[in-house]
């Protein structure tokens, strides 16, 4: 039963590390948007400064 004396601290450590990692992730907004990242693999062409020929859509509230 002495193995318990090793295993219990080990599991507690794992739980501790798990909680710490999770807190880090929450604090760094990793859980804020759960929808968009799912389509990252589908984003086939690397975005770059697009050669825009069309003007931006008209915005009626534009302060112009």
């Amino acid at each position, binding site marked *: *039963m002495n193995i*318990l004396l090793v295993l*219990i601290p080990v*599991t*507690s450590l794992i*739980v501790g590390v*798990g*909680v710490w990692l*999770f*807190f880090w992730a*929450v*604090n760094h*907004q990793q*859980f*804020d*948007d759960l*929808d*968009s*990242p*799912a*389509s*990252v693999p*589908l*984003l*086939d*062409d690397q*975005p770059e*400064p*697009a*050669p*825009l020929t*069309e*003007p*931006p*859509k008209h*915005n*009626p*509230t*534009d*302060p*112009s």
Partner: protein
Amino acid sequence: MNGYAAWAHPQLAAQVLRPRRDGCSEIALRVESLNDARQVLWLEQRIRALAGVRRVAIDRPAQRVRVVWDAQRTTLPALLESFAAACCPAQPLQRDSIDDARAQEQHQALKHLLVAGMCSMQVMTYAFVIYVGVVDFVDFSTRSLFRWLGLLTTLPVVFYSAQPFFAGTVRELRERRLGINLPVALAVLLVFLASMFNTLRGSGEIYFDSVTMFVFLLLGGRYVELRSRHRSGALGDAAIDAAPLLAQRRRADGELETVPAIALLPGDRVHIAEGSAVPADGVLESAGVQVDEALLSGESRPVRRARGERLVAGSVLLSGPAELRVEHSGASTTAARLDALATRARRARSLIAPSDREIGRFVARVLVLTVLTALGWLLVDPSRAFEAAVAVLVVACPCSFALARPAALTRALGVLAARGVLVTSGKALYALARVDYALFDKTGTLGVPQLDRRGVEPLRGDTPEQVLQLAAALAHESSHPLARALADAARQQALPRQAQSVRVSAGGGICGEVDGRALRLGRADFALAPSGRAVSVGIADALVLADADGAIAAFRLAEQPRVEARRLLDALRADGVAVAIASGDHANRVDALADRLDVADRYARQSPDDKLARLQASHAEGRVTLAVGDGSNDAPVLAGADVSAALASGTELAQSHADLLLLDGHLGSLADARAIARQLQQVTRRGRRWSLWYNLAAVPFAALGLVTPWLAAIGMSLSSLLVVLYALRVGSTEPAAPADVSGPPLRPRELHA
């Protein structure tokens, strides 16, 4: 495309930027065209690539983007231009919209949930060892070790994860009411203390596994509810942002331009039409007017303001147009007042908080039942009293009962906001479900008036253009739908002239001076009143322009029913609602539209008082009444109905006192709202009934000691979760109406093509 340059002005920037301690600035932007996930990512990457940008957070349901960046390296106009270049034009929102509360609340809830989950799993393994040990090989000292381990692992659950329950209990007790947090906190604390006591003593039952699981499952249910509440809130925000308060600013050359109210600067001259809201604090530069400051001071009587006096932002102009010189616009107090609508809509959301008396009574009964169970068992078998009492306390906790209503209501508000219906009073939805009499306004509500050239009939030999120009000068000053149709028609041909000393009389028309000539525009009897002539039959049903000598021209506006009017009326009639049209218009015109829409119950030549009397008569018959109007022109009628709905767009939104606002002329959404209101009522009732039956069925078993605390914890958490998930059905069975009408999404590939 340098429309964003104005935002470089420090005073404007101060209204939208929030300085941060690290020297960066933070801004909230409204971006409309966030249709698919790929575009969101693409936009995020582009903005992040700009110099000095630290953080980009995109909230899709709320259509908001928050950027934290170094304004020294990229200016605000440059940032806005980058958004426009990415085909996602952005509109800065007021500084107050930068709101961390929601994200923080969610982060906290996630952390509480995870700690409870991790610890409960640990405690479960320890408890398992103990269960096994009772039977078999684990010796006594090892058993004691595991009890201590259980105690240690439960500590974070009770003192960290269960915090929301304790905080809620303290709040409820401070407000001197019994809420659902009390039984939960009591159960957690009692079970934990008893188990700790038994651990210290070294004998007796321990329930650490039950406590942790109870907290974990309950937090899980609350997290689901929180997510759905936040989503609804975000959808509501998007709907509110979509209707910013606009202002008519006079440019240096005297022309009017439309700008958002937050873009006004001190010294700007603003034109305010009759019936619209004052966009900023300022000094009145034209003749005296009447204003309604009810939204600000609660004073419902109109107030007179003379030339040179101050007008306060957010008040509504009741008479005549006004010219205003803006004094200050930057003060955040003013900015906050402007958004009376936003505040009202948010208040409706916060009213959802369950403060029912019913729940208080329920909790009181649960507590009494728990004490009775404990006393009963103390007489019969004291060793089982504690377990049975805790089981009753947990099983009978009215969590699911209390959640049924707010969960369904938040969901309904979110679904409606996505379909263009803004609810400003939470009770309105419950009344809408019971409505059986609907009174519609005609012009601007069921029908859209339009003027074409054939409708202009000069009576004294002028050209149609001339009379149209004269009439438009007056019509321009009113927000009535007929006046607006006339002004629209004139705008296509020539610029309207300026009208002076304009007066608007409700239900009659407009009078004023154009080029020194006193003119009246409106109903025939109103327009011809000063000339003393009788109204001839030919022009009785037309809009008449007249001067002191008699009629100058008649305008016959064709009225087309709105696209969705038919669908709405059919849906209401199929639902057993009596439909009526009451209009201030001439009988011929009311008949024409009512015939096309098959409405038999129609009333012409109605003053607002007549309409109100009609509503009150129906109400006295025991009917639940709904009034639908265009917001600004029939406020008393709308206020007199059990539920009111107003078709509104842009500026009028802020001042319409209706319970339901149908944005951008989505008349058909009212049918959806009615369907959802009924569904809401049904879901709430059913959810409450379920949880009541569950409690009634489970309590006897618990009181007899047949339910262990862990089983009670599972049962009660599952019942809450079920009710919350059931509430998500609201609005999901409807045929999905197109939520956005902004057109097909732009995809990155198309942008390259």
